[in-house]
């Protein structure tokens, strides 16, 4: 499964983007499980996002999730952190 994370916004507004292919990744099984959990449960989708909170678009297995700081589930946060290699 290909997992892609695109970040926009934040105070700095410096965009970040990264992708992994789980079949090629040493922790592929863990990432795939995280992606399933992350996409299954949007955190507080109707809650207002923080101004300057990071905005994320996560695409995995052809499905897309939009989420924003500070309303991330622990699985979303871990997935984004692992794929992007930066704090989420």
């Amino acid at each position, binding site marked *: 499964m290909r997992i892609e994370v695109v970040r926009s916004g934040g*105070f700095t507004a410096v965009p970040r983007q990264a992708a992994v292919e789980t079949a090629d990744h040493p922790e592929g099984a863990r990432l795939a499980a995280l992606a399933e959990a992350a996409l299954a449960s949007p955190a507080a989708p109707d809650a*207002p996002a*923080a*101004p300057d909170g*990071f905005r994320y678009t996560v695409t995995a297995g052809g499905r897309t999730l939009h989420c924003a700081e500070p309303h991330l589930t622990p699985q979303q946060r871990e997935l984004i952190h692992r794929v992007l290699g*930066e704090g989420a």
Partner: protein
Amino acid sequence: MGVFCSIVPPHVLDRLARSSDPSVSAAARRTLEHDARQRTRRRLATAIGPSGATAVSARPADQPDRTVYDARHQDTLPGRRLRAEGTPPIADTSANRAYDGLGATFETYLRAYGRHSVDGRGLPLTASVHYQEDYNNAFWNGEQMVFGDGDGRVFLDFTIPVDVIGHELTHGVTQYTANLDYQGQSGALNESVSDVFGSLVKQYSLGQTAAQADWLIGAGLLAPGIHGKALRSMAAPGTAYDDPHLGKDPQPATMDGYVSGSADEGGVHINSGIPNHAFYLVATALGGHAWEQAGQIWYDVLTGGSLRADADFAHFAAATEAAARARYGEGAQLQAVRAAWSTVGVAPAAAPASGLPRQNPGEQTQEA
């Protein structure tokens, strides 16, 4: 002289006073001298009692009520309490900078505009430092400030620039006033208002005139080796940085460079360069302290109740013209506002923005 400064740590002022930049060193020296006078005045006030000694019960205090917490590199807020209002500095420099920056922002809004804290009613100011690990961001979450330490490679600690703290707390002010929708042009205005007052907090703290100010947002935040001065430049949008790790500053100064698209809520941090530059043009045309006239006009628009939550640049421009006329008449202020919007390519809406204000209640109703 409207200099505030007891919040800026004396050791910083001492360093600034020795700066090789004459405008910086002069301002810091003025501030140190001003601080000494203020301390004398406070001692006198303590000795002889407050002037006009009346206790108005419903009036918010003229002092902030700050608490700084340690998120301990987790995402749970606020975390462990580190420093409460009125307590001396502690070993954690991030906590002390956050405490000082909250105070600088409170002082600027109070002394320049008579506003008591973010909500105008003395809202306690809460901040958490050390949020997550190597976190390259700071934000207002609707209730409090959150600061990351930065990764040290591209960004340093987000408590370093006082304008970042002023920027984030201004998101709180906007939330309680014009409540600008955080997308598209209204979102870019929301961002711009935070840059404007963030910069004014820095200028007020340093006692700078519009000509002395650097008009940068995030100066001091970029790690050594990163090619850039800051994250945004109000004087010259698009020139703040150009670096392999960051790309190039994407901000336009005029509508010719307006960016559309879905990322960043429609480029709210990019197109904010346009109203940012308009404010810079007004402030530098009028000269003197930018918070006094240019800032007052922008503050009147933000808090006046006539701006729609979905206002676009044209609405905002018309509102600033109306505010300039209402406060200063048909003078230099109105001319400067008109010229600034013309330069950045924004034609003010035909009628002043009105109707459907979605302001949060309570803003103008204290002291009943």
